């Protein structure tokens, strides 16, 4: 038997496979396809203090081996999540991890304070890396002082595991990672999407209503993998790795680069059952290669 349990900054996961925020709804969208309780955790859709309508259509463009999105944090607000969504998903035997967003530090605090009162939620993902909102979002995550400030503020009002989701749209991601580690983060998750754009040459117009959007999918995997490796070597807190993971082999590569757990994102759109296949694939890899515990893979890159 392979021990698949991992510890992500105090958060116990039954296995290292989780689904990435914004790609898995609130979980129920996938309940027809597999038993959600098989997952290590679900990073649910980004939540803000108040209802947000998100950006105008079109919000998506397919690109080579990936896609751009510019959803813009459409959601019904934290109260709706706590009152109407969480009661529907809390019975699943998996970690439900809200993804917390704000336009101001005060909004991040207010959302976090509300979540801190909810029984059963053991961790949050602090999103300082959304590239698709005009105010807040990535602005907090691309400068060290603001990343530290928002992490410190949220740390003070949250008792559980604080995972800070980092933006790759920075000069040196390890500086931000070290900053939020010092500010009290228990773990970091990376990477969020890369800022990109797509153009229709025939109409000479951008393909997204917002002109720019976030690139995800296998197109970004080598860069994401490099950043996970860099951050793993720069900080002591664990890393939740993501960026173009399409199968178990990709997931194992992220763990070898230093990820304690991984998040599956865009691949959920291609195969709604992919996360279960990744769990099975990781277990088989461990068996075949003589690893008794999946944690033996973390940072096991031989250089």
């Amino acid at each position, binding site marked *: 038997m392979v021990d698949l349990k991992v510890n992500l900054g105090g958060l116990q996961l039954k296995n290292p496979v989780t689904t990435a925020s914004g*790609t*898995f709804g609130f979980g129920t969208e996938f309940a027809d*396809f597999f038993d959600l309780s098989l997952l290590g955790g679900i990073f649910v859709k980004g939540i803000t203090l108040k209802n947000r309508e998100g950006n105008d*259509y079109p*919000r*998506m463009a397919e690109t080579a*081996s990936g*896609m751009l999105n510019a959803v813009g944090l459409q959601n019904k607000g934290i109260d709706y999540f706590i009152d109407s969504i969480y009661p529907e998903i809390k019975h699943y035997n998996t970690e439900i991890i809200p993804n917390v967003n704000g336009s101001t530090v005060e909004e991040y605090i207010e959302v976090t304070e509300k979540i801190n009162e909810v029984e059963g939620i053991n961790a949050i993902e602090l999103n300082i890396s959304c590239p698709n909102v005009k105010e807040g979002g990535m602005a907090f995550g691309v400068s060290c002082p603001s990343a530290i400030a928002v992490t410190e503020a949220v740390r003070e009002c949250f008792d559980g595991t604080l995972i800070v989701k980092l933006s790759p749209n920075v000069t040196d991601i390890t500086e931000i990672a070290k900053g939020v580690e010092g500010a009290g983060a228990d773990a970091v998750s990376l990477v969020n999407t890369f800022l990109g754009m797509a153009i229709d040459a025939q109409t000479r117009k951008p393909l997204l209503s917002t002109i720019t959007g976030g690139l995800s999918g296998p197109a970004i995997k080598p860069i994401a993998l490099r950043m996970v490796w860099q951050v793993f070597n720069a900080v002591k807190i664990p890393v939740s790795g993501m960026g173009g993971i399409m199968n178990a082999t990709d997931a194992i590569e992220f763990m070898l680069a230093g990820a304690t757990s991984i998040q599956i994102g865009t691949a*959920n*759109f291609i195969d709604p059952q992919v996360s279960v296949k990744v769990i099975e694939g990781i277990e088989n890899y461990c068996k075949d290669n003589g690893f008794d515990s999946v944690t033996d893979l973390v940072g096991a890159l031989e250089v």
Partner: protein
Amino acid sequence: MKHVQDFKVKTYRWLNDENYILTLQGESLETEILPGNFAEIRVPGIADVFLRRPISILDFNPTENTISFYIKAIGKGTRQLGELQIGETISIVYPLGNSYSVVEEGKALLVGGGSGIAPFIQLGRELKKRNIQTTFLIGGRTKNDVFLTDEFSEFGEVLVTTEDGSRGEKGFVTHHSVFSGDFDFNKIYTCGPDPMMKAIAKIAGEKNINCEASLENMMACGIGACLCCVTPTVNGNKVVCTEGTVFNTKELGW
């Protein structure tokens, strides 16, 4: 219940050089498929078609475990779907989306153009089961763009418009004489390009007739997870793949 399931390519029926009906066969079939439902089809064998393609379900056969799609080859994905080998495996996620609400009495007018005729086979059959007097109004540029009229005629009267007058009345569907004079339909269903559906919705609004339109926004997931395919409505942004694709045109503000 939604499924992700492998099928095999059973037959192609080419209607002309860019329109075809693809029929797939599975070892089983989910049979709760409603008029207006769609599937997300994985395009095999082409690296730069990354996302699944949302395609309306044309019809299905529970006895043979087959499901068919009317596809217009307009891009890389839809062209590739026309070039598969018979017997090749293909993955689909289905059935997705809401459906047209089938009226229980009165007379129904179904207005379609382009690839927006696919849901009308199932819808026509359901209307016939309820003894609804059904009229199909199908538009095309020329007579070579008007398809499936024999199939529709099993379920009701078929009217045609073409822009060049080569079949039926000349002009757009909105110019058809069915809309003038004694117009006694109590329901309009429409599917096709947005400008056509908006024009039909406007007529429906003027005549105070309930009208439903099916949108074909670009999608990634097809199951309400990514929120990429939204449309503005009078009740805020709605997710086309799960809260649609069928909307009452008043809700769309048309």
